[in-house]
């Protein structure tokens, strides 16, 4: 049986899937290290739980909504086409890579997007409600937006409006992943409200080595995210790889410089945040810009996000781990940056404003960013509000003070001392009974 399968590209796609999977634990540690010690387990559970729920939903119906034949207007794919991954298992002699690998790769994008949202409602969220939110949000928000921007028409297949009609550029998810998670993060943070003590206590990261572990794994995984999006082991993948590396580097340096000038010290938390800001911004643009362009994007993202994370104190929303300041803002920098810095040498035929290409592409990028923000924010706000009003999304105040780890999971993260070694208490029984027993 002759087959079009390219084993090298398949190897790279499988490797990229594994790398993107690792971003989930990476994010769990990145976020987990940032919260106070009484909330770290709940934070990690929100990420791990999102991974599990989103993947199941993705197999059942999410992939089909995103990549099934368009049902009309480029808005949503046919949910029945790949229902339960049906008809996808046998080797297709015309496929360059296995469709199952592609479907998993895309599913992991959904996982990361959902998991990112959790950062904005850290330390005060009911775990059960979060899992329900994760599943519903994948279907209602993520899958449609992924259809819009990632589903290219080909042959008989008709895809989404942003990719095929608007012709916005988004190589690896500036809209569907970054702006989307940022907008949704803002919405849920507004619905759940501020943590007790927000603005009065600094609520600093309880374990910066864990933040750095997370940052390292995220960066590593991001190469799968971006360079894997080339869907081939080729020259483009290599350029995308270089861009991803360089934007992370200059994002870090730029954030550190802002801190040094503004606060007097460059912090390790700033370094980790700057890396991620650079990576966020290069995500949409990595297939459109040169390595020099990538460095510029990183510098812009690092500096702008470093300033944007202070906004929540001024505007008074508790986006606890800066999903808005880093992912929404960084996603905008990258998505819009394409309009300025796209270079046709890298891929395709689009030059940005600074390469003499006019404002055309810039306009398309703005429309894509705006549409993503509006849809995501709106639907998420309603969804979160319904959950909060019905089954409750936020824990009780006393429970928040005692800590979500203890109350939601009956655990504490660390027991490092010899005396109590292994015998530190947790509390069995349902939420709310905690203080009676304590």
């Amino acid at each position: 049986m002759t087959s079009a399968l390219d084993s090298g590209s398949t190897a790279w796609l499988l490797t990229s899937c594994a790398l993107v999977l690792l971003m989930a634990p990476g994010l769990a540690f990145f976020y987990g290290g940032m919260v106070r010690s009484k909330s770290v387990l709940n934070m990690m559970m929100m990420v791990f739980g999102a991974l599990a729920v989103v993947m199941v939903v993705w197999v059942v119906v999410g992939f089909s909504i995103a990549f099934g034949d368009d049902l009309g207007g480029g808005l949503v794919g046919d949910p029945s086409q790949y229902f339960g991954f049906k008809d996808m298992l046998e080797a297709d002699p015309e496929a360059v890579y296995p469709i199952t690998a592609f479907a998993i790769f895309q599913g992991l994008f959904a996982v990361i997007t959902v998991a990112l949202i959790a950062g904005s409602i850290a330390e005060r969220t009911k775990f059960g409600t979060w899992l329900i939110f994760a599943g519903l949000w994948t279907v209602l928000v993520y899958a449609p937006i992924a259809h819009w921007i990632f589903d290219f028409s080909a042959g008989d297949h008709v895809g989404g409006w942003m990719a095929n009609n608007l012709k916005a550029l988004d190589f690896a998810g500036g809209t569907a992943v970054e702006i989307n998670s940022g907008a949704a993060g803002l919405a849920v943070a507004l619905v759940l409200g501020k943590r007790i003590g927000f603005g009065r206590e600094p609520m600093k990261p309880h374990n910066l080595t864990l933040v750095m572990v997370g940052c390292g794994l995220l960066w590593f995984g991001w190469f799968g995210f971006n360079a894997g999006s080339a869907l081939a082991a080729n020259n483009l993948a290599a350029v995308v790889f270089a861009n991803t590396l360089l934007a992370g580097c200059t994002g870090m340096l730029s954030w550190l410089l802002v801190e040094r000038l503004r606060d007097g010290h460059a912090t390790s938390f700033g370094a980790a945040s700057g890396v991620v800001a650079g990576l966020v911004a290069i995500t949409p643009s990595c297939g459109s810009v040169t390595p020099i362009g990538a460095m510029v994007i990183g510098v812009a993202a690092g500096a702008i996000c470093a300033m944007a994370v202070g906004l929540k104190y001024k505007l008074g929303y508790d986006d606890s781990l800066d999903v808005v300041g880093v992912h929404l803002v960084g996603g905008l920098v990258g998505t819009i940056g394409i309009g300025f810095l796209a270079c046709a040498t890298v891929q395709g035929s689009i030059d940005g404003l600074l390469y003499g290409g006019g404002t055309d592409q810039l306009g398309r990028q703005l429309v894509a960013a705006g549409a993503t923000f509006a849809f995501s924010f709106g639907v998420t706000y309603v969804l979160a509000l319904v959950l909060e009003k019905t089954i409750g999304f936020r824990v009780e105040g006393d429970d928040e003070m005692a800590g979500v780890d203890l109350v939601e999971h009956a655990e504490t993260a660390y027991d490092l001392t010899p005396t109590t070694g292994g015998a530190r208490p947790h509390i069995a029984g349902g939420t709310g009974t905690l203080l009676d027993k304590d």
Partner: protein
Amino acid sequence: MKLVTAVVKPHKWEEVRAALEGVGVTGMTVSEVSGYGRQKGHTEVYRGAEYDISLVPKVRIEIVVEDADVDQVVDTVVQAAQTGRIGDGKVWVSSVESVVRVRTGDQNEAAI
């Protein structure tokens, strides 16, 4: 002068601190401890097995105060830390013979 030692529930620390600030206490020393008391005997289920738990986390606060302020300080702590449930903690008072402020060498009342 007296030394007031209070052992309270960790999530009450912030309230106790604020209440003490309210009655003019300007200094104290705080540490993380484990308490053993009536709370013991509670059992918990862990991976399907049941256990008695003996130690629970507490916060220990030491405050050196002038003789005249002792009662107010003790009352303030008790009120702020009280939840009415087992494990609320203890406060005890002992006598202090002298106090020095390291920075200046000031002694006794002047050092508090």
